[in-house]
Every structure is written in structure tokens, then in C-alpha cells.
């Protein structure tokens, strides 16, 4: 996901995104999502440039970045593995699946190791085929502990 590990590259990417974004502030959230898509997170150092582009205060931009669960201010691991924690998946054992995942990965929900970020999700609209796991943009249903292990084993290791 991280195409640019260095601060200067990140600054360039942010500048490129802003250069193609109209300065109207309703474009702020799409721009933040675009930046995160390219860099993997929204670098805190870029907030000033983003605020400047939209003629907003840094507090305005920080207020938006800090509100949304999807927006990160630090790099995620190579893979983001989300386990749905909402009611329909609870009814199908997502709590047990999460405990299994934490044991298998040695990572607590909400935490990460070098390769995998293990995160909670709140509903992927797959409620008749739970428990549900999302890895990247792929949604997996009826995930048993065995199926979870197979999904994890299929992930490429860190470079």
C-alpha cells in the first residue's frame, strides 16, 4: 500500500492530489481519502498544506481527520484485516472468531504487527453470510476459524 515511505515523497503526493482538487471545502473528505489511498495514511505534517489549499484552519482539517474511523494518521501494516463486530456477526460467533484471530496473529484487535493490522469493522452488509472478514476490498463470508487461518496463510509476507 505504501508507495512512498519518505517524508519528501509523501509531501509530493499530497501536493499532487491537492493540485488536482478544486479548493472548495466540500472536496476535503474526498481529498483526504485520496491521499490515504496513495500513502496509506494522512501524514500529520500534511495538515497545514491541506488546510491552506481549502482556506480552512488546521483545526478544521484535524477535526475531520480525527473524526472518521477510516482515516489514519500513522502507516498501517501491509495488510488490514477487519473482523465485523456488529450484532449480526455476533449472533454467528464473531467474538469467538476474533479471539481466535488474536491468538493466531498474536495481535490484539485494534493493534498491528509488521505485516497485519487487525481491526474491528462495523458491518459490511454481509449479515446473512457472517461472520464476515474484510481484507483490503475483498469481503469474505461464513468465516470459520479454519477459513480465517487459510485467508491469513494466503496473504503475501512483508517485502
Amino acid at each position, binding site marked *: 500500500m505504501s508507495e512512498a515511505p519518505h517524508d519528501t515523497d509523501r509531501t509530493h503526493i499530497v501536493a499532487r492530489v491537492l493540485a488536482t482538487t478544486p479548493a472548495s*471545502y*466540500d*472536496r*476535503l*473528505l*474526498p481529498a*483526504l*481519502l485520496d491521499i490515504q489511498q496513495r500513502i496509506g495514511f494522512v501524514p500529520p505534517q500534511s495538515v497545514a498544506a491541506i488546510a491552506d489549499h*481549502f482556506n480552512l484552519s488546521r483545526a*478544521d482539517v484535524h*477535526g*475531520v481527520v480525527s*473524526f*472518521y*474511523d*477510516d*482515516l489514519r494518521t500513522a502507516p498501517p501494516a501491509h495488510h488490514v484485516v477487519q473482523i465485523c463486530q*456488529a*450484532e*449480526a*456477526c*455476533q*449472533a*454467528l460467533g464473531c467474538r469467538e472468531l476474533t479471539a481466535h484471530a488474536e491468538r493466531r496473529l498474536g495481535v490484539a484487535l485494534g493493534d498491528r504487527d509488521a505485516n497485519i493490522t487487525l481491526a474491528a*469493522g*462495523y*458491518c*459490511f*452488509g*454481509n*449479515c*446473512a*453470510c*457472517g461472520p*464476515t472478514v*474484510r481484507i483490503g*476490498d475483498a*469481503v*469474505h*463470508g*461464513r468465516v470459520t476459524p479454519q477459513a480465517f487461518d487459510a485467508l491469513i496463510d494466503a496473504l503475501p509476507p512483508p517485502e
Partner: protein
Amino acid sequence: MSTTIHIPNDTSACSVGADAVAVAVETALERTGIDARIVRNGSRGAYALEPLVEVDAGGARIGYARLTSARAAELFARGLPDRTAPECVGAVEALPFLKNQQRLTFARVGLIDPLDLDAYRAARGFAGLARARAVSSAQIVDEIRRSGLRGRGGAAFPAAVKWQTVLDASAPLKYVVCNADEGDSGTFADRLLMEADPFQLIEGMLIAALATGAQSGYVYLRSEYPRARDTFERALAIARRAGVLGRDARGAGQAFDIELRLGAGAYVCGEETSLLESIEGRRPLVRAKPPVPAIHGLFGAPTLINNVLTLAAATTILADGGDAYARFGVGRSRGTMPFQLAGNVARGGIVELPFGATLRTLVESFGGGSLSQRPLRAVQVGGPLGAYLPPAQWDVPLDYEEFAARGAMLGHGGVVAFDDTTNFAAQAEFAMRFCAHESCGKCTPCRIGSQRGAEVIARIRAGDAPDANIALLEDLCETMELGSLCALGGLTPMPVRSILRHFPEDFFHPEDFSRGALVGGGHARLDRTQAPR
């Protein structure tokens, strides 16, 4: 006649392997040289059968259910499969789960390639739009009024009142906004509609634009639905190329276009004013009402904001007339509702029914009871803010007012089943924790109340002064209900109270919670004198 093989491509079908099945079938067809065409249709929403492959060799579409890619390869290895295959479920249309529904909004869903505009037209697509073009704005709103349509997003507000208010507002700019931030657990009707019949939503928004005079539309879609995003983006592009959207979409020189906006993982953005703040690029705190969005909405302009299913229903209402739609339903709940069966249920999926059928019909006849084959102990209706109802309550008709009279709500139509291994005190604590996690923080009853609520429930569950803490919890629920700015804080007490009422023993006997220990329990009034163990 050549053969058509339908393989679904919605999120849920693909989550259980439909893409791999499609590859296996395609490979087998190439190898055998059979003249058959694969159509990736949207799922019919009978999710217990997915991945469901349907073979149409002229006549009925014969289904083969729950195929793996390996089994699909075997079945198609020597030509088309026959009805003796163990996976064969016969003619899919004849399955009781589908046959016994009344599909209006979901009539096309699962039948056609979602992005085939000609197939959409051939299946009565744009019939509603054609009618809307032929009549005045006031007449469109009048059809909506006669239909009795109420907001399908959960609030059940009369749609025509919103439409009329925006129509009556005099302003240079107006907007139509579609709320596709379907955050309730147990709901997926918006997702399936956008993945399996996206042109219907576009048509519904065009009808709303013709009715209100809006020049511009937004769809606000949650980020948890990547496939709906892709499908709908492609549908928008196709509609623009075909001239359905664009410069002359509402008539010569009368433009209308739709922009898709993505959320970023915030449940509260499904609240309409928070959603508008999110589109505007602000921290999406809920707005105080009035003014209502119909008068002062997106960018301060009059804005019609409706859920996906509400806008989609407008296509049926315009095509068939408001009176025809209103012939379905009971009381003040007119028309049909696409209910969504989820959680621990044998046959989950979309069940579109006229209002008035009972919850028991939905859970038992359509759902077939639990998936775990253990007794069901409750269903939660209407998402995370809805009540948990034990089987003794299941004879309630699916009707907005009947549910409200029982301290429950239909909401967006999600029904999540739980078996007898569930501790409902844990579910009550989760309801408060979820609210605390998702609160926008603007009003104190929601922001602080949900934190304190989770703590109080944890204390009760630990046996810490339960009498005093239950009194405190009930007081807190009242404060949240009456004092919160929006439905998030205002309705979080609903599941909590329903559990206090129907499952009080779960608060007091946490260690009794074991498989089967609590079968059928929970109708006694809460006994405050009972000592914690």
C-alpha cells in the same frame, strides 16, 4: 435457443465464492465447447443458497445451490448439469422463500445483469420516469402522497411531506441526496439494490429531481461497501453515456447529474444532518433541527434527502400509480418493505413483503429458524438501535405503529436472530458501547450518557449494587431518550430497555450463561429484590 447461466456477483455471493465458481464454470464451458453464455446477475438475496448458479436452457431457471468451485467444475465437466445433482434446487422462482414474497422494489434484483441498460429497460425500467416526465411536479408529489410511502431509512417520515416542502421552496439551487450510509447491522437492502439494480436508484433520483426541481444529486455511500461503490460508479457512467443523466436529463436543457460520495467509517453519518455536514467537508456533527433539510439542507439549499429504498420505491409508485402501491400494507404502513433476515437464521436474505405479515412469519416461515439448530431466544429488529424481541412477541404485525406500541421499531427492516447461547446483558452493554464509539459528541446525553450507560451495565453484570444501578440505568435511558439531539442517543435506550424487560435474568446470572441454560426464559418482570450471585 442458447443457454444462459446466471452466476451472482454481489458482495455476499462473492464473499462465499461466487467469483471462483464463475471461473470454474467458464473454464468448463470452454473445455466442453457448450454454447452457453454466462451472465453475472445480482443475487436474488436468498443468501442461504449462495453461491447459486442458475441454468436457463429455455423455460425455467434451474438452480444449483451452495456450489464450490470444485463442485461447479465437476457439474459442468460433461455439459450442462441435470436435475439429479444433489445441489439442484429446481426452478428457483418456485422456491417458497422467493415465491411467497411480494417483490416490487426488488422485482428485478437477481434477474438481470445489473449494468445492462437494455435489460433494465426490458424489465420495466424507466416506466416510472416516463410517467413522471408526462405529468407536473405537483402530480408526481401527489402520487407519492397517495402511495402512503414513508421513509424506508428508519424514521418512517411521510415521504410526500418532504417532497412537497422541497417543491414549495423557492430557491435557485436545490438538491436530491440519497442516504446510502446503511450502517445498521443486519441490513443490506441498500447495498444489494445498488449492486444488483443500480439504475433503479438513478431512476428514483431522477423522479425526485423532476418532482422538486433539483438540478443536482448526491449519493452518500458508506466506505464498507466497496463493491456497491464500483457497481454504482459504473452505472452512473453508463447512464451519462446514454443521456439518462446529464445536460438534458430532466428535459431539454434541464440538467441533472449525480455525484457519488464516500463516507469514512462513521455510523452517525447515516443521520441526515450529519450526512450533509460530511458531504460539505466539515466534521460531521449532527445539526439541530429546525431548520429541516427540506428548507435549509446541503450548502444551505432546499434538499430532499431520502434513503435508497425510498427513492427506489418512487419508481414503482410512478409506474403503477400511488393507489396501486397503497393497496399493499395495513394501517398507516402502506406498500411493501424489503426486510432483511440476518444473524443466526437458517435462510437469511432479502424478504420483501407487504406490511402486516407477522414477525413470526418472517423469522420462522422465511427464515426457517436458527442456523445453529438451537432455539432462537430473540430477534433484534431495526438495527443496533432497535429492540430485542423474544418469541412471545413475534405475533406482532410488521407495521410501524404496532412496533412503536411495543417499545420497538421496524427501522430499516433488519431482523437479526440470536439463539439461546446469547447473553443479552452483554448485548445491552454492547448497545451502549457502540453508541459511545459512534457518538458525534455534540450533545451531552449521547456523548456522556452512553459512556456511563456502558459502565453502569458492566457494574450490574458484575453484581455491584444491582438495584441502585438498574434504577440509575433506567433514569439514564430516559435522559438519553428525551435529551439527545438525534436518533443515535435517542434510540440507544431502546435495545437496553427491551433487554431489561424481556431478559432481566441475564443481568443477574452471568455464570449461568451456558449453552441451553436459558432456553425460553425471560418473560418475568425484573425482580429487583433478587440478590446477585
